[in-house]
């Protein structure tokens, strides 16, 4: 008996050790960034692993005092919200039709959207640039918001359609009998009933927009509109020799994602995995 529990304990210990090791691989680079921001370059060389000694908050203070950082964070936020509202709103309307209305050509249209899943930004970016230039949307946040929403439509429509289909037809029938038109049914009944699915597609849209790099890179020449990914990358090339300063800036840039993740871990994990797997 004692032998068996001993073996189990040893096994448990080994597994625990392995988990800690992998967790360290994840955590060490991030903590290196956070702590590195509090060091100077000399400390980074002589004392790479330990706590900063002394703590030098200057790099963080500089970044937080710079208007550029706040501007970039605001731009990222505004663009993410606008893209999400647009893609979820427009996508939900289309998904409602695909789920509830029969009309000739419906499946062809739906397949057209579904095939859009196979179009990555990278394929379309050149002509998109030419098109946005013709439409005068360069250096304009709409030049990022509209294409992001358009490219987010396929996954949004696919997820929402399958969810809308799962809502019993009786719900709509009784609403219609009570004199509810399609607009009111959609807005007052269907959307409130679909919160989980709307949450999934909203997570996908927000994270996708927040992390997007390629599109803002070609659309925004003017640093006034830069988003955080652009700002971080530019900051790195500007201060390439000053590692500590860059680490502070990167840390600040990843903080919003980390904080959101800490508070909404479950929603983010389930949104991102179920959303992407369905694509």
């Amino acid at each position: 008996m004692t032998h068996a529990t001993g073996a189990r304990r040893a096994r448990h210990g080994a597994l625990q050790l392995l988990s800690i090791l992998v967790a360290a691989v994840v955590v060490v680079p991030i903590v290196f960034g956070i702590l590195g921001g509090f060091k100077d370059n000399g400390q980074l060389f002589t004392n790479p692993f330990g706590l900063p000694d002394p703590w030098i908050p200057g790099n963080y203070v500089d970044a937080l005092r710079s208007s550029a950082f706040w501007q970039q964070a605001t731009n990222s936020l505004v663009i993410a919200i606008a893209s999400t509202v647009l893609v979820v709103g427009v996508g939900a309307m289309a998904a409602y039709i695909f789920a509830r209305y029969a009309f000739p050509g419906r499946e062809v249209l739906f397949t057209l959207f579904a095939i859009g899943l196979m179009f990555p930004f990278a394929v379309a970016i050149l002509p998109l640039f030419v098109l946005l230039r013709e439409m005068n949307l360069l250096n304009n946040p709409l030049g990022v918001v509209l294409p992001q929403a358009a490219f987010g439509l396929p996954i949004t429509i696919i997820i929402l359609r399958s969810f809308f289909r799962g809502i019993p037809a009786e719900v709509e029938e009784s609403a219609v009998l009570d004199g509810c038109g399609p607009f009111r049914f959609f807005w007052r009944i269907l959307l409130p009933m679909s919160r989980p699915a709307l949450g999934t597609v909203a997570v996908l849209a927000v994270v996708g927009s927040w992390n997007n790099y390629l599109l803002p890179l070609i659309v925004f020449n003017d640093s006034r509109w830069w988003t955080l990914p652009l700002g971080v990358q530019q900051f790195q090339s500007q201060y390439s020799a000053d590692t500590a300063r860059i680490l502070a800036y990167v840390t600040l840039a990843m903080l919003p994602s980390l904080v959101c993740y800490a508070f909404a871990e479950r929603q983010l994990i389930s949104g991102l995995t179920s959303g992407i797997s369905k694509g």
Partner: protein
Amino acid sequence: MLTDERRPAPAAPPPPVEATRRRRRRPWLTIVAFLSPALVLFLLLVLTPIVVAAYGSFFNWNGFGAPTAFVGLENFHRLLVDEIFVGDLRRALLLVVLSLGIQVPMSLALAMLLNQPLRGRRVYRMLFFTPFVLSEVVTAVLFTMIFSPNQGLANHITRLIGLGDLGATWLADPDTVMYSLFLVISWKYFGFHTILFLAGRQGIPQELHDAAAIDGAGPWQAFRRITLPLLGPTIRLSVFLSVLGTIQLFDMVWVLTGGGPIRSSETLAVTMFQEGFKRFHVGYASAISMMIFLISLTFGLLYQRFVLRRDLEGAITTIGDRR
């Protein structure tokens, strides 16, 4: 009846007579009103660019004004003998092989680990997934610092564990850059695959493993004969996402190496970006875009047709059949 809710609702059930009349009055108006915003957005900003890229790839075009110098298939012909482009394909293959050979099995193993009754399992799960939440750009900048020769962490670690200056050059040497890149990609994405596998594993009914244990199957046998086959759909999905992600890789490489040193870490998308936005060979770059598209599409369709077919209900290739 309550049980009705469990039945999947039919696409467009015949509503009661009165409701039908009400809806029939102006169904087209509703359909057009609800569908057109999505359709306009999608046609204008997704399909049009793809068509323009396809069209532009047949021209010698600098991106200004309409393309006029038609060159037929010359751009594609040049691609096939372009060392860089062929190198892109070779490097994509290398990354795919590394991902499937190392990253996917490792993620699977970690999922099995997290499926054990381990103290702090929830915390590990959360930590493993963290890198996936960060953007590729932030990850790349962070690792540029980590790989930096003097202040970076990587060299300190190799020295600490007695490997000396094993990879002192990491990103600066054409021979090591792809492996360093793979390291960063794995760091960012292994947690996502682990969570996928974990969800798949937890979807397998416990009774199967209980029955196997009663029949005397050891843990390895149970894994080999029960877990692995039943995880098939998840594994196939994980492989699918890895391959597509690799073909379309851009942000990470662009920020981490810019495709260098001496173009030794360029991917298809990086080469396209260089040609299109730096050298204004828009026609040629469009041809690369089309190749990325065709490779993704061919892979996606073949994979769904032959590998994923039994797993994914409503996948692209079966949508047409459901009418």
